[in-house]
């Protein structure tokens, strides 16, 4: 629990979470270690064996688009291979996570040794000016992991509910009434909250539970921008990027995907992050009292060098082998692969590097802790999750001219 007397917390009125898609920490931010050795990125000598046994080194040659096609596998069995290097519990009941199976996993999709090496690529910081700048100017998390070694939807469920209710896949699920979404909790206590999808054509990934049953929770990204401009931002906002290249529903042009999901152009996502940041940063009535978390839902099958740690089991939930696609059940007792996460606020110390372990259950845990206080009806994982607003710990707000500003190129 952070010190409530912190000036940044006393001023805090709004929290905004932007959840992007499918990129690992090392892929996006690993190059920052050369700028700040405290950031647990890449030394350059990390390797993975390919299918012929040849070690493949990480390479700062990631491209914005075209290298990760086909989309790298990130379903549960593939991530198990990526994390454990292909060693099964049958071979070694005490197997250790070694992060040695990424190239092998990518090879399985196209059977191309050369193409499989691309999974080791990462961006030099200069190619990602927005994410890199925010990570170095505000706070970057060295240990924010996806919640499950699996795909998007079960991981995003942790951000909404603090659990995936036993799911490790993309299947339709109905939430257990025992654990309400963070939006329901806030609403019932009289707090304002919204999920902002990009537009009606991209919509939300929370279809079956939230969009169907509580459509008034939702707004478009334009609604978010309008709310920022009119000082009507909810206390808690969750933003979803544009998931597809599509014609605008109102016939006003073509809209490019901004989610950074492979193989979408990463630059569109950089611009989108800048849009969100600018909407808050450029409003002097919003900037001092708003915290922005930028986080990725999962690693997308792309290499990261940090083994995910064990965690509090999410009992009573267990995914049986028929669900995991592996010989073993999963007790939700290990986190997924590490993802980029950056906390932005003028109350955060410049260049902060956070070493505590976080996962997506930390999002509802933080909102509940800050807005509601004691609240017991939560998953085991959420109750155990660390919260992040204590990093708004500066005695004085950072002067405006020391906060980065972004201008989009056309």
């Amino acid at each position, binding site marked *: 629990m952070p010190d409530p007397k912190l000036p940044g917390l006393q001023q805090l009125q709004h929290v905004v979470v932007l959840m992007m898609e499918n990129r690992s920490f090392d892929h996006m931010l690993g190059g920052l270690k050369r700028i700040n050795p405290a950031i647990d990125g890449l030394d350059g000598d990390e390797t993975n064996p390919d299918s012929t046994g040849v070690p493949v080194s990480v390479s700062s040659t990631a491209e914005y688009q075209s290298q990760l096609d086909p989309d790298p596998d990130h379903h549960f069995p593939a991530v198990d291979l990526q994390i454990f290097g292909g060693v099964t519990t049958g071979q070694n009941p005490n197997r250790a996570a070694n992060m040695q199976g990424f190239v092998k996993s990518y090879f399985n999709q196209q059977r191309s040794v050369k193409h499989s090496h691309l999974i080791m690529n990462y961006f030099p910081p200069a190619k990602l000016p927005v994410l890199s700048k925010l990570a170095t100017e505000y706070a970057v998390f060295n240990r924010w992991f996806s919640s499950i070694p699996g795909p998007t939807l079960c991981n995003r469920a942790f951000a909404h509910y603090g659990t995936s209710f036993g799911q490790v896949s993309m299947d339709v699920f109905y939430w257990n009434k025992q654990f309400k979404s963070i939006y329901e909790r806030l609403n019932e206590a*009289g707090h304002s909250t919204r999920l902002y999808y990009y537009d009606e054509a991209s919509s939300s990934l929370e279809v079956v539970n939230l969009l169907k049953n509580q459509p008034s929770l939702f707004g478009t990204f334009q609604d978010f921008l309008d709310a920022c401009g009119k000082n009507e931002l909810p206390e808690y906002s969750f933003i979803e990027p544009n998931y597809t290249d599509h014609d605008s529903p109102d016939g006003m042009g073509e809209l490019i995907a901004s989610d950074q999901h492979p193989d979408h152009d990463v630059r569109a996502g950089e611009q989108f992050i800048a*849009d969100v940041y600018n909407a808050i940063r450029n409003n002097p009535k919003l900037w001092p009292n708003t915290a922005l978390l930028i986080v990725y839902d999962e690693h997308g099958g792309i290499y990261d060098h940090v083994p995910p740690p064990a965690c509090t089991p999410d009992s009573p939930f267990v995914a049986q082998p028929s669900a995991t696609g592996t010989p073993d059940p999963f007790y939700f007792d290990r986190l997924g692969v590490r993802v980029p996460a950056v906390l932005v606020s003028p109350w955060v110390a410049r260049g902060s590097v956070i070493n505590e372990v976080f996962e997506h259950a930390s999002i509802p845990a933080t909102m509940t802790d800050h807005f509601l206080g004691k609240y017991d009806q939560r998953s085991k994982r959420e109750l155990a999750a660390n919260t992040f607003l204590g990093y708004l710990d500066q005695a004085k707000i950072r002067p405006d001219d020391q906060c980065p500003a972004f201008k989009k190129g056309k």
Partner: protein
Amino acid sequence: MEVIHVPPPGKTAFHKGRPMSDLIKAQIRHFKHVEEKLSPEHREKIPQHRITTENEAAQYITAMTRLLRSGVGEKPAKPKLVPISAKKSAPRTPARGIAIAASEAPAKPRKKSKTKSTKKK
């Protein structure tokens, strides 16, 4: 601090004919799951075209999202929502466990988007 310029996507980056990813396929499955529970008159409003590309998915998702946002799938006993426009938060001490009373003011009507942030010509 100098202004940082953010490069735009490549001129050939936009590809609405791109086959759907597993993510979009899952999103479509979820919408189809919801669609199957709608009444016949509501289902008539949903286009039933072939969906293989991102843009085809977007067309279907638009129709379903508009329908759901109109309240068609909503449960009768919906939770009480606090209109954002009614909130006038003062800087507050983060005291815990005190609920703010919900406003009785009517919900703000939804506005139509006028501009897009990542538009390509």
